[in-house]
């Protein structure tokens, strides 16, 4: 992010050197805006998809009437902004018997984790005005994958805090369920991600994408880790759904059982924070899946030019924009898959979930790791070096 931003400002202002903190602040603002806007769109999309699956139209009454008349996909655009305003204006209630510190800390903590996880996610790359192609991320950390897994686990602390501090038996049960669930799904998830790690020989998400683009055994299409590490992709996706508490793994907030689980006592903006974080985490999971298994911002055999000459105007950073478009298209394809799962499956029972996680997913992720090691060894011996 930093070199691109500095270059961008220099081009724009004619040589202004930005202070060192500026890129960080700008990234923070961009990520915050992205979380809010993207969550709004995702909630709208979720309701429309849900409506489509259930033979209804979803929200149709908010927004321009003329659009709503056109089709169900153009109606109800203002639904989530209206809902957000409603949540902002609601009374913020802190029940008398709660542990005030924990109660107030939990939503902040959960949102903090949701925010921090965006740091190493690579959304594109550019070689415009750069000596070498640069990965576009807030910071392409060398241990990006490990960082992402570590930060998403923070959510469990927030949920446990919320469940404990709420002084409500349903909240407590919900919090405990979330704790158990995330703990036992973290492990197969990490092992599922170790396959791509071995294949790429790197923990940096940017490197992972570049390796995938280079291809396996010299074949570009084989490069997407979805192919060599297919089991890993399946395990990761299941674990990721479980970790974001989305149905069918929504035991911590199972409405029919625990009312609203850990968020039972929360109202207004505090509740909205949980909600926002949940949607943000869902999208993050899809972004990680895209970066690790679906080749990120690349398409096999396609390298966009760094600038596009439109005749009257040269569009700079074209590769950056094209990469972002590809990346988000892929991420949203995964989002649609998750929504499809959500609205068609019944909820699991907590003990079945544990059995499934420990006795099925964990061995499966080991098998995946083994396959990946063998493939990486073949690559190393016959094709030289890591696939990249």
């Amino acid at each position, binding site marked *: 992010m930093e070199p691109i931003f500095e270059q961008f400002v220099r081009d724009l202002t004619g040589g202004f050197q930005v202070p060192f903190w500026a890129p960080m602040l700008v990234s923070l603002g961009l990520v915050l805006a992205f979380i809010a806007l993207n969550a709004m769109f995702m909630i709208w999309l979720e309701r429309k998809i*849900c409506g489509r*699956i*259930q*033979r*209804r139209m979803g929200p149709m009454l908010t927004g321009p009437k003329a659009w709503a008349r056109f089709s169900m996909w153009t109606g109800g655009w203002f639904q989530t902004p209206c809902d957000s305003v409603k949540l902002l204006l609601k009374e913020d209630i802190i029940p008398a018997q709660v542990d005030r510190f924990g109660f107030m800390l939990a939503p902040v903590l959960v949102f903090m984790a949701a925010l921090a996880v965006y740091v190493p996610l690579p959304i594109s790359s550019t070689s415009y005005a750069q000596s070498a192609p640069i990965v576009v991320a807030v910071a392409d950390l060398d241990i990006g994958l490990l960082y992402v897994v570590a930060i998403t686990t923070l959510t469990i602390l927030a949920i446990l805090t919320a469940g404990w501090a709420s002084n409500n*038996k*349903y909240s407590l*049960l919900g919090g405990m*369920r979330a704790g158990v669930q995330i703990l036992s799904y973290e492990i197969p998830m990490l092992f599922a991600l170790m396959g791509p790690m071995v294949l790429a020989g790197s923990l940096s998400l940017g490197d992972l994408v570049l390796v995938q683009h280079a291809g396996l055994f010299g074949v570009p299409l084989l490069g997407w880790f979805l192919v060599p590490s297919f089991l890993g992709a399946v395990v990761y996706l299941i674990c990721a759904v479980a970790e974001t508490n989305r*149905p*069918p793994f*929504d*035991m911590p907030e*199972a*409405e*029919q*059982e*625990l*009312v609203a689980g850990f968020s039972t006592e929360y109202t207004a903006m505090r509740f909205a924070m949980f909600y926002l974080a949940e949607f943000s985490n869902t999208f993050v999971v899809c972004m990680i899946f895209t970066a690790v298994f679906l080749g990120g911002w690349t398409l096999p055999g396609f390298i966009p030019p760094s600038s596009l000459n439109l005749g009257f105007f040269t569009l700079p950073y074209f590769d950056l924009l094209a990469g972002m478009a590809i990346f988000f298209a892929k991420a949203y394809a995964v989002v649609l898959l998750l929504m499809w799962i959500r*609205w*068609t*499956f*019944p*909820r*699991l*029972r*907590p*003990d*079945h979930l544990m059995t499934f996680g420990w006795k099925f997913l964990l061995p499966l992720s080991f098998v995946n790791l083994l396959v990946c090691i063998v493939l990486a060894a073949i690559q190393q011996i016959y094709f030289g070096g890591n696939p990249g």
Partner: protein
Amino acid sequence: MMRQFPANPDLTVEEFELNMGPQHPSTHGVLRLVLTMDGERVVRCKPVVGYLHRSIEKMAENRTYTQVIPVTDRLDYCTSMTSNYVYVMAVEDLADITVPPRAEYIRVIMSELNRIASHLLWYGTFALEVGATTPFIYGFRDREKVLDLFESTCGARLLYNYLRIGGVSRDLPEDFCERMLAFLDEWEPLIREYEDLLDENPIFYNRTKKVGFLSAEKALAYGVSGPNLRASGMARDVRREHPYAVYPELEFDVPVRTEGDVFARYRIRMEELRQSARILRQCAEKLPGGPYLEPQPLRVVLPEGETYVHLESPRGDIGCYLVSQGTDKPYRCKFRTPSFCHIAVFQHLVRDCLIPDIMAICASFDVVLPETDR
């Protein structure tokens, strides 16, 4: 009860009480369950009923025989027709009134349509309790069409007040049979769709198979009836064992399963949907002409005596015990409702289950609270 943690004697594990309901998203109305829990495991369950008590039986004693009919609507709002039916049947039995054949057929049509509506509602809510949202909408979508048929017949969609002493309040609309058959043609293939949404799903299968097992002996001991009893291997159906109305002339099967678990209760109801459709088709074919009501005086005065009649409601064996002292008001009007028995046996089934199982088991019994409390 406190017990010590085996690995570390300093730690103790304590049971706690969880008060589920009367306001809870999934206790079907206002059932209250006082649960003693050991973590997620249920140690004891004590259902507390009575939050919906409206003294329907006492109200009936202060109304004339005709005026009681709308009160019976409120017995079980999901199947008002059968609640109407059992009451008027008791009055007719005591007064020795013969119902015209057309009225008998109309009553059977209405009961079976109501069975479909009730089972569809059950299907939706049951799926919702196990966490699947979509079947709920599917069930309600098709229930609407049944309600449309009711609306065109008696003007109401929920509380019908349609049956009268001696017949029904008005004749079927002219095109009723065509519309009903059109509905059946369109709807019967959709039963397959309902099953597709749940049957083969391993999550659903694991959550319902071998959960909430009810043995036939226990079921009989607690007076369980209807689909719940048939799921435990007893082929008991009032329509078959003590036939009333025109049921002897109709062909239908009584689906039975022997597993006695949640899944069996679900399968039984799905089969019953098909059987109801079969009965309706025969009724549409055989529906005779003639009067739909044997007119009665506004104030029906019954001879002294008492009677007990029962019939098969979607929930099970619903009965009405009626005592007359020769006046125009019942001396005693007692309803025997299936849901009451189901709640009684329910508490024994959830022992040692997990919280999600409570929901699955409770929903599988198709308990309707207004009927329990009366």
